[in-house]
């Protein structure tokens, strides 16, 4: 074989082997680390899996936030005004987390239907709404304050 061609062939082989390894790694990494978003209505309908990481988001229900007196445990409910999902989180919440504001919690749903959150994401500026939450509210046909549209 012509040396230049041989070299090209080797380069191609190298790239193919390397990229297959990279893709394999990627698929493996992806399989364990993606999670799907569920609006509260879907969770209430029993469509969300129990025991796998998911995200649930909506508005934090007014009057639902309860802080523990002796630990960092916090309980609250997220709602799309059709259904609510109780969430338990232990740790420090983002600054802009508040009742009546949008939030997305990621964690695992237990048998009792409570989301054990490992992370809570709130908006980070006054006018920003996580797109998933906006979408969930639109699906349930309510605006940010819970009025029927």
């Amino acid at each position, binding site marked *: 074989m012509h040396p230049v061609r041989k070299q090209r062939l080797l380069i191609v082989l190298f790239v193919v082997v*390397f990229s297959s390894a*990279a893709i394999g*790694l*990627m698929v493996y990494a992806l399989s364990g680390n993606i999670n799907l978003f569920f609006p509260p209505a879907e969770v209430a309908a029993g469509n969300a899996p129990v025991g796998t990481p998911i995200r649930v988001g909506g508005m934090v229900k007014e009057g639902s936030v309860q*802080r523990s*007196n002796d630990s960092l445990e916090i309980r609250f409910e997220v709602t799309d005004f059709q259904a609510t999902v109780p969430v338990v989180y232990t740790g420090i919440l983002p600054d802009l987390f508040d009742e009546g504001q949008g939030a997305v919690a990621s964690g695992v749903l237990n048998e009792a239907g409570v989301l054990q959150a490992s992370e809570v994401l709130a908006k*980070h500026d006054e006018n920003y709404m996580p*797109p998933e939450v906006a979408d969930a509210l639109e699906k349930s046909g309510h605006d940010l304050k819970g009025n029927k549209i």
Partner: protein
Amino acid sequence: MIPELGHFALIIGLCLSLTLTVVPLWGAWRGNAAAMSIAPSLAIGVLVFVAISFACLTIAFLQDDFSVEVVANNSNSLLPAMYKFSAVWGNHEGSLLLWVLILAFWMSAVAIFSRELPLLMLSRVLAVMGAISVGFTSFSLFTSNPFARLLPGTPADGQDLNPLLQDPGLIIHPPLLYMGYVGFSVAFAFAIAALLGGRLDASWAKWSRPWTNVAWAFLTLGIMLGSWWAYYELGWGGWWFWDPVENASFLPWLAGTALIHSLAVTEKRGLFKSWTVLLAIFAFSLSLLGTFLVRSGVLTSVHAFATDPERGLFILIFLAIVVGGSLTLYAVKAPSVGSRVSFNWISRESLLLTNNVVFLAATLTVLFGTLFPLIMDALGQGKYSVGPPYFNLVFVPLMAVLMPFMGLGPVSRWKKDDAKRWRAELLLPAIVAVVCGITLPYFTADEYNVWVALALVLAFWLLLGMLRDLAFRTANAASRLQGLKRLTPSYWGMLIAHLGFAATVIGVVATSQYSVEHDLKMSPGDTDVVAGYSFTFNEVVPFRGPNFVADEARFTVHYQGEEIARLAPQKRRYLASGSIMTEAAIDDGLWRDLFVAMGEPVGDDGAWAIRLHYKPMVRWMWLGAIFISLGAFVTVADKRYRRAPSRVSAPTAQEDVHGAKA
């Protein structure tokens, strides 16, 4: 009046950009020298008018002109002047204007510093940049006019700048980042101009290389500052979240890293030409994609501004035109510029090829993880998110694969090298690196950590490989010092940047593996011990800032019985917006950072949720990044990037002078 002036100046800027796109390209096509030679003046003209426009917006902010919508939405009369200034780009409209300004700046820099370029090339480069400027200026004018007024209905006071952005780091983070992002447009313009002319040769790479290095250096600094800001300002103590917007800035960096290495091969050996062009297109397209991701609000991210879909669509169309157009041009022109030179497997070329493959793989995997949620959503498969573990799992092994080759790089020779020579040169450094790397973790921590050991082995391998090469290169000189003086800035730049990379790797691994984080409830008087440092929570006192009120917690930190720091984190409430913000307190050092942040009050007895962190060697990461960027800046000082014009013009001028005297 002033905002209208700014608006008007921006419109003139758009018209000039339009002329810059059309006339020189037409001149290049028809061979009309007059049409081509107006390109530099037009480029400078664009800068002048965009700068006027930017200055007008800045004045509106500084003078609290709340009749201007962006000022009313993003500033406040109580805001310190420094932040009124940075508020100019702390919002969608203003940051876009900054983008246009920096593009104009790069354009003028090319016009001024590249006078030695052949006129044909220069006019094409500037015209391509002019076209990009047309795209972004019209984006600014038609979808996000920064000068829109609120008349009638001017509010008495503004809504304030997002408190997270009221920080010194944020004053320079966006401009630096944009210098990098937009700087890749120069590499892109050179690539497109070369494709248009059908001439891709070593001189093209030589012209393009310093620009690319500088842009990449700015991008490195910008990303580093962003990471640093996230660390101390977001209040979480994290420094990289694999957030879509962070990825958006990281993607052009990864592609740019491949590009600057591939450019080296193209310049020195005339190889990988088509590939380099493709990378240049790729790097800039990723910059645009980043802009789209950040500005369209399609992703859930801590960076997203509230936006409307029209803007996203505009950038998406622009992106499609740029990527589609340049790839079409590439498909038509590139096959005619193939190279016929070959190289041996044991050579510097193949090492740099490895760099390219690794960085391309890294770019694609990060790109995939970033776009996966968007793709699934578009396909109606539901709203997914891809977590940091995915990115760590794909990115970290890639970098680990890269480093052994990186250590070989400096010692290797172009074209054909000898494996025996490599063994002879590097056997000792390899053994020393392995021994040092494996033994050092025994002394630094109680528990042996394999990952730290691996990182140290790789970092020592880089360092010792470079020292070996340095010794080798200075061996033949009269003295070592003289030998060192003879080394080129390109070589020094490479050394500094690779050294920085080693430091960053050590910092990242050490801080990830050895950090200790306690989130706990603390009442005044409580003490908690983190990694041998005892944090005592003394009291909470009220604090009044210029535009906020705060609860300030007072901590004293003792280590081995001695007081080493007093820390005062705050929980702020900004008066204008009412938003709550955590201000962490950090005692920084080269070997460790101590970090305290306040959560919320817990219970009724004055207790707070407190976050205490011990972060060893976290500074190494950012210091390393500064070195990486410094290295890239240093390479530009290389004489060969300036030699071309002086050799032709200067001696003749001198001869004339001498001739006249004689």
